[in-house]
């Protein structure tokens, strides 16, 4: 696995379901400046499917999904 990127903002959304990790990411992306990198910690396995889908649809960049013990760190860069 490549070296993990540095993030400008890290959101710990582990073990949360409502509104959930994707909603937390959308909020952070809206608040971020173009070029900033957001990391989301999620223990919800659905996030590994939903976050890349949304990132692609919204035109941002999925930098990577990094597996940890019991959760994943999903890293996204704001592109526009």
């Amino acid at each position, binding site marked *: 696995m490549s070296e993990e990127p540095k993030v400008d903002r890290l959101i710990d959304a582990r*073990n949360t*379901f*409502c*509104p*959930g990790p994707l*909603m937390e990411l959308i*909020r952070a992306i809206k*608040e971020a400046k173009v070029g900033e990198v957001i990391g989301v910690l999620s223990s919800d396995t659905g996030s590994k499917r939903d976050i890349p889908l*949304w990132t692609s649809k*919204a035109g941002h960049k999925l930098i990577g999904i990094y597996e940890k013990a019991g959760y994943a760190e999903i890293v996204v860069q704001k592109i526009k």
Partner: protein
Amino acid sequence: MSKKIVIVGGGPAGTIVANLLTKKLKKEEASVTVIDKTGRHVYEPGLLYVTLSDQDPKGIVKDEKDILNKKVRLIVDEATKIDTKRKMVEMKSGNRFDYDYLIIATGARLCPEEVPGLKEAAYHFYTVDEALKLKDALEKFDKGKIVIGVGGVPYKCPPAPAEIACFLDYKLRKRKTRDKVEIHYLSPLPRIFPIESVDPIVNKIFEKEGIKYTTFFNVESVDPKRKEVHSLEGETIGYDLLILIPPHRGSKVIEDSGLGDRGGWVPTDRYTLKVKGYDDVYAIGDATDLPISKSGAAAHYEAKVVANNIASEIKGIESRDKYNGKVVCLCDAGNKAIYMIILQSPLVPDGSIVC
């Protein structure tokens, strides 16, 4: 010496924590003061019924003094600055209150101006006045397309927009105008309901009742002239009547005091509910940056933890409670056989959802 506990905000969070503290602590142990800018307490879940049912707004608005324990001192004034160095809250009137413990319960603020076109084009039901305006508009609306969505995340009560879509369907069927009205729901997520395990239940109702929906639709702007909503994902949806929950931010006093993050939410420890970096300042309810639903139910459970911990500290008891992320949520779809969903979303490891 008696400790001074100051609570900023008289919503569910501030009211519950104040009442619990006065039950747990004697007068000689602590004084409890609630600062609230209106002095009126609105039971916000009732706004759905003001909009679509015969709920009289008077029944969901009470004087804050009537629901606070008599031992709580209520100050009806606006907090304009929280000075954590001098341990003091400054008021619009010029008065100041110093504290030994501060509880921030300042809630969320509706900011329709953050989405271009939203304020002039969209209805919502998150205040009494707006709920009454929407009620009036819906009563006159007998054909066309109603679009329902949220103007931004986070927002209070995540199920509320899906709730009003179902409730509206029920109402229109009762009025026998449902066949002339299209209901179109916009979800910011890849599904209708925020919680994946609950989504199939809500999806089934949408399919059965013919409520249309578009997923991954995060509102970017509204064009009132063309009657169109644009998403940041690049889609456009037309409407005849638009219901959009305005974007939310943290309270102005939080932003003016430099205590909030970019959204004005207070960085809060998810277990102790202390504001990060402080030992004598707590935050509860919608004001926090915690990744849980902004709802009175979350505030209720958080208030218990903070009241217990402050009371224990004052009494010299060592044990401390931790907030476990509990939230209970009831949803009313307005069907003849009203359905309800109860869920809990623990923040603690190995948490599970109970439906």
